């Protein structure tokens, strides 16, 4: 199981997933320019940036929906090629998309195993799927869902998000990327989801959290990566930076406190 409770890992020294010098263009539009990103086990890495900064494109490169034009993709220190969503999930990289990609007409168990159903012979093995789904949700301390045989259409926004996240961690995944998980949620549901995000990292996963909400970012993130117009503006520890500096990095690509030229070369600490 991906979620056997492990003691909080020591501050990771080597990133589990690392991107170096990623470039991606769509026609004449150069969306990503030499982007670097490091993601560590047991940590929440927030990926922030203004609209159009390239966050979604970067996520799609991580998830194998887009292939980068140039640049290197390292997983556990080894260079890999990721050309399809299957490649990414084979590595243990799962993406939770903003629109969640859940089937409303199916129940929670069916959604969690979608496309990777367990079979006994050629018949679906409902019992074992139900059991694993239940264990996974329990491992995430999810108590908001009353029945795992409930249709997803009957769930609230926060519960849907929870199911999508549980689906992503079901597969012995090592890296989970969450695209704006709290964008459509109310206050208490946001708190629940953020708690869940923190718990994922505490369970030893590497979490990438994309968010527009600085409160969310400072609440759960260990590190923050800032994209500005398709470049890495900074990658810093949350403890080394303030709210207003991050906002400055997002809006102008540089901040006084981190030294001039931060936008051009990127700051890595």
């Amino acid at each position, binding site marked *: 199981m991906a979620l056997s409770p492990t003691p909080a890992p020591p501050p990771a020294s080597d990133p589990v997933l690392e991107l170096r010098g990623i470039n991606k263009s769509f026609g004449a539009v150069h969306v990503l320019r030499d982007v670097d990103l490091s993601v560590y086990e047991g940590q929440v890495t927030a990926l922030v940036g203004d609209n159009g900064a390239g966050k979604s494109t970067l996520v799609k490169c991580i998830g194998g929906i887009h292939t980068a034009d140039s640049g290197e993709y390292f997983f556990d220190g080894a260079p890999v090629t990721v050309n399809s969503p299957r490649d990414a999930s084979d590595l243990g990289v799962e993406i939770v998309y903003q629109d969640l990609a*859940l*089937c409303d*007409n*199916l129940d929670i168990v069916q959604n969690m195993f*979608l*496309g990777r159903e367990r079979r006994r012979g050629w018949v679906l093995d409902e019992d074992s799927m139900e059991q694993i789904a239940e264990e996974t949700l329990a491992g995430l301390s999810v108590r908001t869902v009353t029945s795992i045989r409930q249709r997803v259409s009957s769930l609230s926004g926060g519960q849907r998000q929870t199911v999508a996240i549980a689906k992503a961690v079901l597969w012995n995944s090592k890296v989970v990327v969450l695209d704006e998980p709290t964008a459509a949620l109310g206050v208490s549901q946001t708190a629940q989801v953020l708690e869940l995000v923190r718990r994922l990292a505490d369970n030893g996963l590497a979490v990438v959290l994309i968010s527009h909400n600085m409160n969310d970012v400072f609440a759960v993130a260990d590190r923050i990566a800032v994209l500005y117009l398709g470049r890495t503006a900074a990658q810093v520890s949350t403890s080394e930076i303030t709210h207003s500096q991050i906002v400055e990095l997002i809006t102008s690509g540089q901040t006084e406190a981190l030294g001039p030229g931060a936008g051009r070369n990127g700051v890595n600490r």
Partner: protein
Amino acid sequence: MTTTTNAPPPMPATTSGAHARALPRRVATAVGAQNTSLIGALIVVVGTFAWLDDGYLTTANMTVIGDTVAVTGLLAVVQTVVIICGALDISVGSQAGIASVVSAMAFTSTDGNAALGILAAIGVGIAAGVVNGVVIVYGRVNPVIATLATLAAYKGVAQLLAGGRAQGYVLGDDFFIFVARGKILGLSVQIWTLFVVAVAVHILLKYTDIGRNIYAIGGNDTAARLAGININKYLVAVYALAGVVAAIAGVILTARTGSGQPTSGSEGLELKAITAAALGGCALKGGKGGIGGTLLAVFLLGALENGLNVVGVNSFWQNVAQGALLVVAVVIQQRRNGERAVGLPT
């Protein structure tokens, strides 16, 4: 009961009462609200016509109903699968027509080899289905338009092949006679064919990952694609399955009439198949439906059509009734989904 002193304590009484109430409710949940109302409608229809005409509820007439619904039922079962994917196949009737002609012609030209006749029909069915699927998926043609086009085209092909008239004569062959008139355990071979196909498709839909993925494609095709399901392969395969089952229906038509029929017998079947699927609880936008509901709806339509014949209602009115029923079925469905009346329906 007899003594008042030994009255049972109230607790067990209430629990057993709750139990007695829970059982019907559990049965009702297993059958589903949709199917319960279909069973109710079936009882009302059969009851009404049995009251109107003494000949209606006889074994002979029930057999007639059974044989009539066999072909419609086959097409409705496979239409259910297509609709669950979120698509539609209007061309099933024409496919059955081609298959009917081809089976009879292949039978005649191979000097009476029934197996080859049936294989040829099934081969043609697969080809017709794959063409539908490829036109829809790779030609990016809306399923309604694509199969409306092939409805006409396949009918033309069947008429060209047959030269516009019935082809071959198959009722000298034991197998075709068996299909046309044979009985197993008191039920006709045609009904057994429907039963076997329906059970097979039901198992496919409910107990295999293929079926699960078909529901997923109809529910949210983006999610299905992101989950690694090859949607294109599935859609083409589902249309091919529709072709195969339509071919089986075509062979039954051939056996029933004794010769390959390009249009008579297969025209209008698409409307019945779609009506049955919609009435049986298939959501036309996909992702919802099942074989049980469709079969109940098939029998309901069969009982209704036969009843209207028995009491002598003009067959023109029956067409009106059938069209109205399809509209009513979909209206009820949309109301139940809480669809708002704004713009074009989804």
